[in-house]
């Protein structure tokens, strides 16, 4: 494959707070090819949303992208280009779909007006052309009678409809990459499925790359081809989606998979990963997961694990790759499984 669309190298985004430096994203590297759909998965606080904001350079003070980080997009380094060029990229080449369709739309303008606004910011042109384009987009994202709907205000639409509008706004300039930050979390389950279907469909029709950020592995399974798992501001595992579900390597990924509710299991309570994500000002030394890990041994608190190659396109930040027999010693990794 030629040069990827996006290449992130050693991205570090730190927040300088009163309680110390929060290393929310701490040395993340990954690539997204043109037309590829990638999932970014992790618990709250693992750094996935900050990664997304960094890609669009929307991190606010006291946060900042550390020097030495590189985000190559379209052959340009997002970290260093000037603000004007950055504005031209935002919305036109790289766009974002936000989590909360209730608040992601401006309540005082009609939805058609808001989509047309994006066209006018980037293209100029007449209001009428922009409006026509907006109506087309509403139709494309599956909103019935788009010409009338375009005249409605956000509060007149349901949550699912609003999220469709938000997606239409993100796609109106036909960007090369769309970052979708928990696009379905705020929606009903049935609507979630529809929105995911829509994203998948649009991705195929337009050839857009999508970075799908979620804490829900179920969402990832249906939508993406490759998964990146983050923990403690780092990538801990990366694999093609089937492989990740069949043979996850990192104990954290294993924990996430075990925590998924599954139909047909007589298990009455869900497994959980004990403990919680440590504060980003104070990551554990060495392996950042070792204090929650069922396999942890002395090496894990002494030596920071590198990304070990597990298979084709599969890497894992866990010393188990070095000493696989230690996994075999334990049969039931997450003992929190409870039989009522």
């Amino acid at each position, binding site marked *: 494959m030629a040069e990827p669309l996006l290449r992130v190298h050693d991205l570090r985004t730190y927040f300088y707070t009163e309680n110390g430096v929060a290393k929310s994203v701490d040395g993340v590297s990954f690539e997204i090819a043109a037309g590829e759909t990638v999932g970014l998965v992790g618990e709250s606080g693992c750094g996935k949303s900050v990664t997304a904001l960094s890609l669009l350079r*929307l991190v606010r003070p006291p946060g900042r992208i550390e020097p030495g980080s590189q985000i190559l997009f379209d052959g340009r380094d997002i970290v260093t280009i000037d603000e004007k060029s950055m*504005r031209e990229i935002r919305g036109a080449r790289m766009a974002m779909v936000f989590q909360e369709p209730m608040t992601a739309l*401006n*309540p005082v303008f009609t939805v058609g*007006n808001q989509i047309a606004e994006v066209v006018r910011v980037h293209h100029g042109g007449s209001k*009428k052309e922009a409006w026509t384009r907006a109506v087309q987009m509403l139709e494309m994202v599956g909103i019935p009678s788009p010409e009338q709907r375009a005249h409605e205000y956000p509060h007149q639409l349901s949550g699912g409809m609003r999220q469709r509008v938000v997606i239409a706004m*993100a796609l109106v300039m036909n960007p090369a990459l769309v970052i979708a930050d928990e696009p379905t979390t705020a929606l009903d389950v049935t609507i979630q499925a529809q929105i995911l279907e829509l994203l998948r469909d649009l991705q195929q029709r337009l050839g857009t790359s999508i970075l799908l950020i979620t804490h829900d592995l179920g969402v990832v399974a249906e939508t993406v081809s490759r998964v990146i798992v983050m923990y403690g501001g780092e990538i801990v595992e990366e694999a093609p989606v089937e492989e990740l579900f069949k043979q996850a390597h990192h104990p954290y990924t294993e924990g996430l998979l075990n925590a998924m509710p599954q139909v047909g299991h007589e298990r009455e309570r869900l497994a959980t990963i004990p403990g919680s994500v440590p504060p980003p000002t104070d990551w554990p030394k060495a392996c950042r997961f070792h204090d929650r890990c069922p396999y942890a041994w002395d090496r894990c608190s002494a030596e920071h694990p590198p990304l070990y190659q597990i298979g084709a396109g599969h890497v894992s930040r866990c010393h188990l790759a070095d000493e696989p027999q230690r996994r075999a010693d334990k049969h039931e990794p997450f003992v929190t499984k409870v039989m009522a």
Partner: protein
Amino acid sequence: MSDVNTARGVQRSLIGRLWRHKSARWAAAIILLLVVAAIFGPMLTSYTGSEQLDIVKLKNMPPSWHHPLGTDQYSRDLLTRVLLGARISLAVATLAVLMSMTVGTAYGLISGYAGGVVDSIMMRVLDGFLSIPRVLLLIAVLTLWNPVPLSGLIVLLGATGWFGVSRIVRTQTMTTRHVEFVDAARALGASDTRIVWRHLLPNIITPVIVTATLAVGNVIALEAGLSYLGVGAREPTPSWGSIFLDGVEFFAGNWWVVLFPGIAIVATVLAFNVLGDALRDVLDPRQLHGGPALPAGKPAPSSNANAPLTLGTDPIQNG
């Protein structure tokens, strides 16, 4: 398809809502009547406001067919003078409020949007301004600048009236700029200017409109008070306050010279206050746009205290 204009839809529902608000209907009708009277009234009477008709025979005439509100001690027709006074009082108050709202909104927007050190400095400066008693400052300045032209009066009233509203705007800006649609706009390529104009201003304007309406009433009372104290509009310019001042001297003989401008002042101020309160109800963004998208748009109750006039310059109470 052609109607890309959004303000229209909002306006339509706004007028409908105001109409259904009973006291607002009355207040709006009174204000409308006043505006019409101020614009056309002086053209319809057969006198000019400063014309002394007959200083011997026609002075201090009680209300009659020829002089519905009577005449004053200089034999001038009081109806004409009160109508001219409406023109001056409304014009001065409206322009002064327009000025203070513009300045206050701009100041609050910049302060709230910039945040950080800029915000701290601007707010400390504002605290300084707020600690100056407005009425005393006005009296002092107007005593030195005497007689003051109407334009000067407008500028002074405007320049001392924007502190309260800039605080409200700043607070609204700070809450609104963290609502997701502002981030979304930025993520789709909007510049700071565009975000402020298009995404912040329309969402924070509601309390400004309410404050402005209340402020018009207050400035009318304030201007009347200053004129009554002899430092506002001066003879022969007939502002309600100066007419009132004329009448007080001969109060026992010609009560009508005091009564009619007094009624005008009270009715006008009352109408603006009622309308302001009604607008506050009607413009509540949760009612207008539905959904919990924005924090409540109501200015804190104390905001009125920041708005003009707290001292006893109300001529009715004093006179």
